[in-house]
Structures are given as structure tokens and as C-alpha cells.
């Protein structure tokens, strides 16, 4: 089986989707001739033509609005926004239209679109290229928000997102575009949306994460194992709607929980998970729920960015505190 990087897995999934369904259309800046600034769409225009792989003008709002119109007409557009930092002009089309087209037409029209964008920092990029504001999107009724953490899950979840009849924002962790490698076969098999993946079973504490920091979380679990703390690691994968059952079942079992996300702390998606656990798992808790997150600041420029992103050491320390609580 070939070993692919995460971005190669995305490319594979896009090609597969376009092959299977003539309605799938890719659009964005530099996606055609250039194959995308991260090479996520490399080779697609050569294979499927410029009509289906469109180099759009520099206009993010347009890209998202085009997706809404195309999707309403039965195409399956996959728009690319070059960085999450440039997603914000799309908020109008995502919130006011894509997420609610089905509802406001009572099913007469629907919006099966995907908007893909690189997520998160740690690539020594200039300002505005390291955003992680997934919590904002996860708040919107009618949207799906998906974030893979491995090449296998990137392939399977992107296929699922493209085939899904509702709008999906697909956030791709930039930091592990090339760093993550995995065995990915082009089976055309999708992974389920709305389902969390238990990457590591454990008895003592539940670690919940998504995106690039799943890598650090798994590394922390290894370190903890050497210290006789048996951690269960969950990759949430779909943030909206998320797999409440898996989260609650795990915390009921372990009684302790640490949530890890790169995004800023306050109002970060970890807060929603903590609230859910407090609602449905309170009597199982043996320690307060901990969150290891980015700080409530703008992600700093490259010299300091590694101090912002949750490190293995921070995750291990927080887990110790939780396990030694009482």
C-alpha cells in the first residue's frame, strides 16, 4: 500500500471524487494550473479540464457564493480558500446561505458544497496564515465542520464530505500536510462523518483532541504510559455535529478528561465538550476537566509560535495534575 502524506491523501480523494461524479467541480485561487499553493489540487486540471477545475479571481466571497449557486443547481463544488485567515469574507455566504438554504426553502433547495482550507499554525508563516477559529464555525446550525488528523482520515473524511448532501467546511491541518504519513489506498471508501475515532484505548484518563495536535496528544499518551498512566485518546474529527456518545462513554469509564486544542482557550470548542461532560458525565468525574489550549492571544509570529501551540510537555503536565487530583 502506498504511503502518502496528508496533502497527497487529499489530492487522491479529490481525484477520486471527480472521477466518480461528473458533478464535482473544484474552484479556488491557484488551484488549476498551479495545482494549489500546497499542491492539494495538483494534476486535477490536467486530468479533468479547466471547466471543472477553475482558477477563480482573487475573491473569497465569490468562491463561497459560487459554491452555493452551483450546489443549489446540483453540482458538487469543492471550493478552496487558500488559508483559514482568508475564510472570513466567506462567513456571510456560509452562515446566511449555505447553512440554511435547505431549511429556508423547506428542502426545495439544498447546498451540498465543501469549502476546504488549511488550518492552524506552526509552519513559520507570516501573519494571518495560522488561524484556528473552528469554534466559530462549529457554532452555526446547519453546517458541518470536519478536521482530519491523519492521511487515512483525510482521504476518507474528504470523500464523505464531498458526498454529503449538506455543506461542509473541511479544515486541513497545515502543520502536518507533509509531516503526517500514512498508508492510504484509493478504495473510494469514505469514513463516517459525525463520529469520533478512538485512536488509543485507556483506563485512567481521556484525552480529546483534533487536527494537528492529535500528534502531540498521542505522543503525550506514550510518555504517560511509561509513567503508568493509561490514557485513552479520542480524535473528534467531526466537530459539528460531534460524537457526544463516544466522549461521554469514555469519560464515564475513566473519570478524568483533558481536552487539547490549538485554538485559543476562551470559547474554544473545548468549552463545548467540557459543558457536555458536565451535563452528562458529572457524577463520573474524579477531577475537574482540564483544557490544554492556545492562549487567549493572537497566535504569535514564528519566533514564539511553538510556545503557543500545546506541547507534549504541557499535555503531560496537565494530565498528571488531573490524575493526581484526588
Amino acid at each position, binding site marked *: 500500500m502506498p504511503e502518502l502524506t496528508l496533502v497527497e491523501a487529499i489530492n487522491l480523494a479529490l481525484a477520486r471524487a471527480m472521477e466518480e461524479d461528473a458533478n464535482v467541480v473544484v474552484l479556488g485561487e491557484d488551484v488549476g494550473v498551479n495545482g494549489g499553493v500546497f499542491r492539494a489540487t495538483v494534476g486535477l486540471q490536467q486530468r479533468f479540464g479547466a471547466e471543472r477545475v477553475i482558477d477563480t479571481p482573487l475573491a473569497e466571497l465569490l468562491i463561497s457564493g459560487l459554491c452555493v449557486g452551483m450546489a443549489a443547481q446540483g453540482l458538487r463544488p469543492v471550493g478552496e480558500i487558500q488559508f483559514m485567515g482568508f475564510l472570513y469574507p466567506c462567513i456571510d455566504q456560509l452562515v446566511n446561505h449555505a447553512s440554511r438554504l435547505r431549511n429556508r426553502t423547506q428542502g426545495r433547495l439544498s447546498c451540498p458544497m465543501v469549502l476546504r482550507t488549511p488550518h492552524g499554525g506552526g509552519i513559520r508563516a507570516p501573519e494571518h496564515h495560522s488561524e484556528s477559529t473552528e469554534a466559530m464555525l462549529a457554532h452555526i446550525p446547519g453546517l458541518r465542520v470536519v478536521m482530519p488528523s491523519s492521511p487515512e482520515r483525510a482521504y476518507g473524511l474528504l470523500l464523505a464530505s464531498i458526498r454529503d448532501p449538506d455543506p461542509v467546511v473541511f479544515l486541513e491541518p497545515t502543520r502536518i500536510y507533509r509531516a503526517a504519513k500514512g498508508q492510504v489506498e484509493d478504495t473510494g471508501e469514505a469514513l463516517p462523518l459525525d463520529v469520533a475515532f478512538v485512536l488509543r484505548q485507556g483506563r485512567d484518563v481521556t484525552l480529546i483532541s483534533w487536527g494537528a495536535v492529535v500528534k502531540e496528544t498521542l505522543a503525550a499518551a506514550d510518555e504517560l504510559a511509561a509513567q503508568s498512566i493509561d490514557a485513552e485518546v479520542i480524535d473528534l474529527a467531526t466537530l459539528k455535529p460531534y460524537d457526544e456518545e463516544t466522549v461521554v462513554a469514555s469519560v464515564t469509564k475513566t*473519570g478524568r478528561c483533558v481536552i487539547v486544542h490549538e485554538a485559543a482557550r476562551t470559547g474554544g470548542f473545548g468549552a463545548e465538550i467540557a459543558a457536555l461532560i458536565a451535563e452528562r458525565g*458529572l457524577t*463520573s*468525574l*474524579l477531577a475537574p476537566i482540564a483544557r490544554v489550549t492556545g492562549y487567549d492571544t493572537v497566535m504569535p509570529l514564528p519566533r514564539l509560535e511553538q510556545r503557543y501551540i500545546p506541547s507534549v510537555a504541557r499535555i503531560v503536565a496537565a494530565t498528571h495534575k488531573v490524575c493526581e487530583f484526588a
Partner: protein
Amino acid sequence: MRQFLLPDLGEGLEEAEIVTWHVNEGDRVVVDQPLVSVETDKAVVEVPSPWSGQIARLFGAKGDLIKVGAPLVEFAEGERGDTGTVVGELGQEEKAHREVAAPAPAPARTLQVLPAVRALARKLDVDLNLVQATGPGGTITRADVERAAKSLAEAGPAEPLRGMRRAMAQRMAAAHTEVVRTTVTDEADIEDWQKGEDVTIRVVRAIAAACRAEPSLNAWYNAEAGERRLIKRVDIGIAVDTEGGLIVPVLRNVGERDARDLRAGLDRLRADAAARSIPPEELRGATITLSNFGMIGGRFANLIVVPPQVAIIGAGRIDQRVLVHNGAPAARRVLPLSLTVDHRVVTGGEAARFLMALKADLERAS
């Protein structure tokens, strides 16, 4: 209100039939805006508005005949209210809620317990207030609960405090937090007392004498106002131990009554106390208190001053002791005395002087 009358439409017509209205009551219209189409012999004619304004009333419905010169439309005076929006409706002002600033909360002693541990305590029937916490930040751990469960299994059943015991618990707690106690002790040599001397009455009269000598201990202190009242009359609270618990009925005006009267009064109070028939007013208004605990046992004690009083005297067990008397060791009967005062109000000197006066009075021969 201005009325617009149907104008002369020409050609000698006297009336016209309303075909269709183009405006509603309540509409704002401008000059020349078509108000209504009416039918004459020849044609359907639009009647334009003569003024700008708001339509208050339309006269006639479709099919009605309106005479020339008769009212067609009535205009309202005045402006339409500003809705303050372009969509939806803004609600009218309701009565504003009065915001009442909450008083500063008393610091509560909250139990730090995790829900799982709380559930365990419930299961083991452990009162969390009895558990000693050893967890971080004063948290009660599972181990703490289990330990408490074990101890409680070996203790007697829980017994709620009722009645006098409950009142005592509350009163003592309150006194403890307020009063700054200091105690000074001594012994009175009562070898020279007559046989059969009425000890309690002798003591209360000695207290009255001491109050005359040092009036500052027969007083009430109002801590909030920072005021002290020296009181002339000496009303002594006598601590009485009953089956139900401690009560302190008041023997009034000790300074002015003779011994027999005082004894009668005291007996009556004791009887009523034993019978639990003391009226509440007999328990109020003591200016100073005597605890005769020596009748049961013990010599000296650190007593509780009950506000608003500022002093309490303790009479210990009368014993024979070897003292130095007239330069030589001798066996003498002594009455141990304890004086506890509220040092916010009573100085050490005043306390000492009082105690000396008390002792001196007690050491007089009967």
C-alpha cells in the same frame, strides 16, 4: 382632521360610483397620488390626492355612489409615530426593573467535593460536614469519605441538639466570635465564715459589693455602636444546670435586697427552672453573671462572657487548702474565684480591682 370632498369631475355630473380604492386607512400619501378610481358616465377616472398626509378615514366602499361635494377621504393631523426600525417591531418601554444591589455575602464555608465523591458519601450515609478533607485546596477525597464512614460506624447515632442545648450552642458560638476574653483568678479565705453560711447568697452580695467598688464590670456593651452603659442596679444572672441544659435566670436588684429576700427569690427561680416554667422575661436583662460550677466540681475556669454583659464570675468548689496564715502554714477553707471579662470594654486593672473587692467582701467574717 381635514376632509377631502369629491371634486367636480366635470360635465355636470352630480355623483360618481366608487370602482376601486388605491389607498388604505393609515397610509401616507402625497399630492397627486391616486386615491380612488370612480366611474362617471364616460370613463373610469382616478381622483388624485389634493394634499400630502396620512389617510384617517375612507368614506364609502366599492359600488357606493358619492355625491360631488360629499366627503371622500379624511386626513389625519400630526405625524405618524417613529417606529424606530426598518424591520420587525420594537416593543414598547416596560417598567424598568429596579436593580437592587445584593448585600455583600457572608463568607460561606463551602464543601469542596467532587460529584462522584458526593455520591459515594450519600451511598455510605456519611455527613460531609463531619469529613476531614485531605485533598488539594481542602477537597474531600474518596479516601476521606471512606475513613469517615468507618469512624462513624463506630460512633453513636447522630443526635440533633434541641431546645436549651441548641440555644446554648448558638449563644456560645456568637459570644465566642465577638468577645475578647481575659480571665483572672484568686481564692477567698472563708475559714472565718459561720457554719451554714448561705454560700450562693453570700457570693451574690459580694458581687454587688464589688460592683459598687468597681462599677465598670456591671455594664452593657453595644459593639456595633461602640457604646458602653454602666448600670446602677445589679441584676445577676445565675447559671443553673438543669436536666434540659444550662439556663441563666436573673436575680434582680441584688444590691438593695436583704439575704432572706434574695434566698427566697433564688429558690423560686430554681424551682421554676426545674419545672421548666420560667417566664422568658426572667431570663433577660442580667448585668453580670455568676456561675456556681463549684457546686458540682472544679476550682477555676475560663468562662464565657455573654454579650451585652462584660463580665462573669465563677465560684469554684470550696475546699480545705494549706495556706500561709499569719506567717504559718494552716489548713483553711477557700473559695476559688474566676473572673472573665470582655477586654474590649474592661481593663485588666478594673478586672483586678473588682476581683480584689469581691475577695475582700467574701473574706469578711459573716
